[in-house]
């Protein structure tokens, strides 16, 4: 019997991924062994350190990385230029999200539940569905920990974040569908839990978590079914093997396209592309705002990174067959996002619909199977991630005694009380609308020009009309903030702590810079294509 031969591993290439996953394990140990009051500082320091080290490692590797990429771990992972770009994007966005998650100045003790089990039972009691505090005297102070104790928060959120981040990084680098599935689960499971951790509005948060979990499990099943069909077609789950099989065989296309359809449904679900978007508004609204920021920024990057890779590497040669269907999906997503966004009265839901519209734009970019299409999509992901991160950072600052004031009417006249916050929010909303001199415009331009040169002119026109419609609801917020009168006992604007300030500043600065001098990042995004 011959001994199993271990495949060669390019440690340098996958070091960032290993560091993040290793850090996540350490973080679990910290959670288990450190006393409660030491956990928060230790976890924050550890998480930031892990992300920083991973980032530095990535930077060092990317400096000398081969342009054609490296396929390693028995061809399970492909570390090519898009992977490196996406990893960098994910790490920076995760850093910003961690800052929001770690902030304890905005909400005393942080945005996360102090004791999940305890609060769940209180939250379920009648009359406490929205507030969380103030009904049951026994539990009045519980949301901030036991009486007399300094406010605490559950610090599980840090290892969750690291695991989810590790999953996302593996997801975008997966070179075969099984690895991709495992990564999908690694990134999804912590996210389901994180959604349910909100300190305020417990029921809403838990409902969001359950909804996300059930629909997510469903989508994973679709994905897996698709993988099975594709394996039946190609005899392999490697992306490049599927591409090869599609070119030179007379096998039934039913398996190939059936498999693709199911696979793509699973991926589109993660990317919150309409009509697979139904979870998005509820989850965005119910999850703690820092987690929403993490999901909106990072999950989007991971999902679209994977969609782009699958479409480009495995299905690039058959694009004329499936493109029509994805056209319909992209149009549906843009229309749903833009039109339903108009009717929203909750800010977080509105941004959720905006993210659905943006998912449609992103899908257009991934459909252009050209290097321009790939680099445009990558750039769009980075730009959108930073903008949306900062948007949620700003949302978390506007509060009433009951927690965040996310109802639109509560934002009326905000410019009078907090001109800086209103100015920042206006700028970010203009970026989401795609006004020039913001990253949103550069990104849209890159995606649409790639799409137009790959023969998708009608889709570009639809996208531009959808942008115009979507601009209306962004404008509504601006109108409310600047032109309306302040309501009586309106929300207050919390003075953000250092963490949140840094996160918002990061988002705003990147949004501005990518609008004015995007060259460097565009060059990175266009450094190389996917490798098979």
């Amino acid at each position: 019997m011959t001994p199993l031969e271990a495949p060669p591993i390019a440690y340098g290439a996958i070091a960032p991924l290993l560091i993040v996953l290793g850090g996540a394990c350490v973080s679990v140990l910290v959670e288990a062994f450190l006393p409660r009051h030491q956990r928060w500082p230790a976890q924050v320091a550890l998480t930031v350190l892990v992300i920083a080290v991973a980032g530095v490692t990535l930077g060092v590797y990317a400096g000398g990385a081969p342009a054609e990429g490296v396929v390693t771990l028995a061809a399970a992972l492909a570390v090519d230029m898009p992977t490196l770009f996406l990893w960098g994007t994910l790490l920076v966005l995760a850093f910003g999200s961690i800052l929001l998650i770690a902030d304890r100045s905005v909400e005393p003790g942080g945005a996360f539940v102090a004791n999940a089990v305890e609060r769940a039972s209180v939250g379920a009691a009648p009359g406490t569905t929205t507030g969380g505090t103030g009904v049951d005297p026994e539990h009045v102070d519980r949301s901030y920990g036991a009486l007399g104790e300094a406010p605490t928060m559950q610090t599980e959120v840090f290892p969750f974040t690291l695991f989810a981040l590790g999953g996302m990084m593996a997801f975008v680098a997966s070179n075969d569908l099984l690895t991709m599935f495992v990564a999908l689960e690694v990134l999804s499971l912590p996210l389901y839990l994180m959604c349910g951790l909100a300190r305020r509005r417990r029921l809403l948060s838990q409902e969001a978590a359950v909804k996300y979990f059930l629909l997510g499990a469903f989508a994973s099943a679709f994905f897996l079914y698709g993988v099975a069909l594709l394996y039946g077609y190609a005899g392999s789950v490697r992306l490049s093997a599927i591409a090869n099989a599609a070119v030179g065989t007379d096998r039934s296309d039913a398996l190939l396209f059936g498999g693709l359809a199911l696979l793509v449904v699973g991926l589109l679900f993660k990317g919150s592309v309409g009509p697979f978007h139904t979870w998005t508004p509820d989850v965005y609204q119910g999850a703690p705002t820092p987690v929403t920021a993490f999901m909106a920024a990072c999950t989007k990057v991971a999902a679209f990174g994977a969609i782009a890779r699958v479409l480009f590497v495995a299905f690039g040669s058959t694009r004329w067959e499936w493109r029509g269907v994805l056209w319909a999906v992209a149009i549906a997503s843009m229309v749903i996002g833009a039109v339903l966004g108009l009717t929203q009265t909750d800010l977080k839901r509105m941004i959720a619909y905006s993210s659905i519209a943006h998912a449609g734009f992103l899908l257009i970019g991934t459909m252009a199977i050209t290097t321009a299409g790939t680099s445009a999509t990558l750039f769009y992901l980075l730009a959108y991630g930073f903008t949306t991160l900062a948007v949620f950072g700003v949302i978390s600052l506007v509060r009433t005694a009951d927690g965040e004031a996310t109802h639109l009417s509560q934002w009326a006249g905000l410019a009078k009380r907090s001109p800086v916050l209103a100015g920042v929010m206006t700028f970010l909303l203009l970026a989401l609308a795609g006004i020039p001199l913001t990253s949103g415009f550069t990104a849209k331009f890159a995606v649409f020009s790639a799409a137009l040169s790959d023969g998708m002119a009608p889709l570009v026109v639809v996208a531009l009309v959808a942008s115009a419609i979507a601009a209306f609801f962004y404008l509504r917020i601006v109108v409310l903030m600047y032109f309306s009168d302040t309501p009586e006992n309106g929300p207050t604007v919390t003075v953000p702590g250092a963490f949140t300030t840094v996160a918002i500043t990061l988002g705003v600065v990147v949004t501005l810079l990518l609008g004015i001098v995007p060259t460097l990042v565009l060059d990175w995004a266009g450094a190389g294509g996917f490798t098979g």
Partner: protein
Amino acid sequence: MSPMLIILLLVPVVGALLMYPLRHNVPAAKATAMVTALVEFVLVVVIWVGYDTAAAASGTRFQYEFSIPWIPAFGTHLAFGIDGIALVLIALTAFLVPGLMLFAWAEKLPEGRTASGYFALLLATQATLVGVFTATDVFLFYVFFEAMLIPMYFLIGRFGGPNRQYASVKFFLYSLLGGLIMLASLIGLYVTSGNILGRGTFTWSELQAMAAQVPTSTQIWLFLGFFVAFAIKAPLVPFHTWLPDAGAEAPIVAAVLLVGVLDKVGTYGFLRYCLPLFPAASQALAPLVITLAVIGILYGALLAVGQKDMSRFVAYTSIAHFGFIALGTFAFSSQAFAGATLYMVNHGLSTGMLFVMVGLLVARGGSRLISDYGGVSTLAPVLAGCLLLAGMSSLALPGTNSFVSEFLVLVGSFPNEPVATIIATVGIIFAALYVLWFYQQTMQGPVRGQAVLNSLEPAGGPGAMIDPAVAAKRGGGFPDLTKREIGVLAPLIVVIVVLGFFPGPVLDVINPSVQATMTELGLTDPVPVGGVAR
């Protein structure tokens, strides 16, 4: 590489930014803004003096050129340069802004709004206008074209009349929709240039040189995208409905900038982008545009007659005037082009003055309704005289500036478009009708009208059933123009009269660039009277 245009662009930007640290010191903020606007005006004078018309006539398309790469991945440049057409429009802007600031000096702003914000937005608008007129890179032009919306949106929405929210959002959405349609064409143009030249470019001159190679069908699609954006901005008739609202609700200074200059970006866009970049499509679609233009001339005039609100009245007269400009632009003769360009300047002056007069009336009576005024000329003869002059300029009476341009447009358009020109001439009669009717209603006859009467009544007297805004003006009397107001109007009056008799200096600047546009279109002037068109 001349840095002049960059400086011209940055001066108002810096001025606008300075308003923020000065926001609690209103007099200093106003003084700084005024100094900025005057510096900008001096810069424009320097540029005008240095503009070499001889070089322009011998084929130098742009002067004061400045170009550095911006986003190499898209082939865009920070490229600036001016021709005669851009120069006169920049001059118009720089001429109007200091006067508008003087007008706004003592304006009563809505509660909670500061003058520093107001002046900052004015300067920001000016900066974007300079950018729009000087950009020689189509992408850069688009950036300014969209950026222009934002300060104007806030000017209307924060400082405007009672219905300002509706008007500002309508203005923004209309313009944004147009802008996005143009973006589609812009990207299409970029991709087309990539197919023809081997690499995508946004440089205006390269795109112009390539224009002849673009198939006509492609040109028509691309033309339409630009056309819709400019037609909304100009506005031509089916796209005009935002203008009366925005013009009426905007504060007077913003209305002057909006109707006087910002809307010229649309007609300027026809002349600089639609015609030279898509010559075949322009000729193919000219009948359509001319039809819209003629409809606009008559329709705007008819609606102007029916208006009750003074600001809306001026807005509708402008729609009629924009019809003339569009007619001249698509009549394809150098006379008509020159006339249209001069018309843009003159309309900015005459409509600017009309809006200022409306603002002065409203400041006295507190009402925008025409029926609230009557017989003002006996109370404030100088004011009435100024209004008459503004009106005469608007209806293109010989001796005022507008006569020259209107005449040039009609004479230049006749050989190619005789029918449209004859119908457009009827518009002149309408113009006389609405202007004189407006003047007669508000200025002549016995003293009447609620706003006027109320201002003469002692404060707090009988008649509680009146409009609160009107009531607030009670007992103030109906004073004639103050020195400051005369200071606002005097430069306008001088220029209106001088350009009426000596349009030469402006036409000398315009003509070489108009000839260049003719060359780019591959056209020669039609044989004038008696000959067969084309």
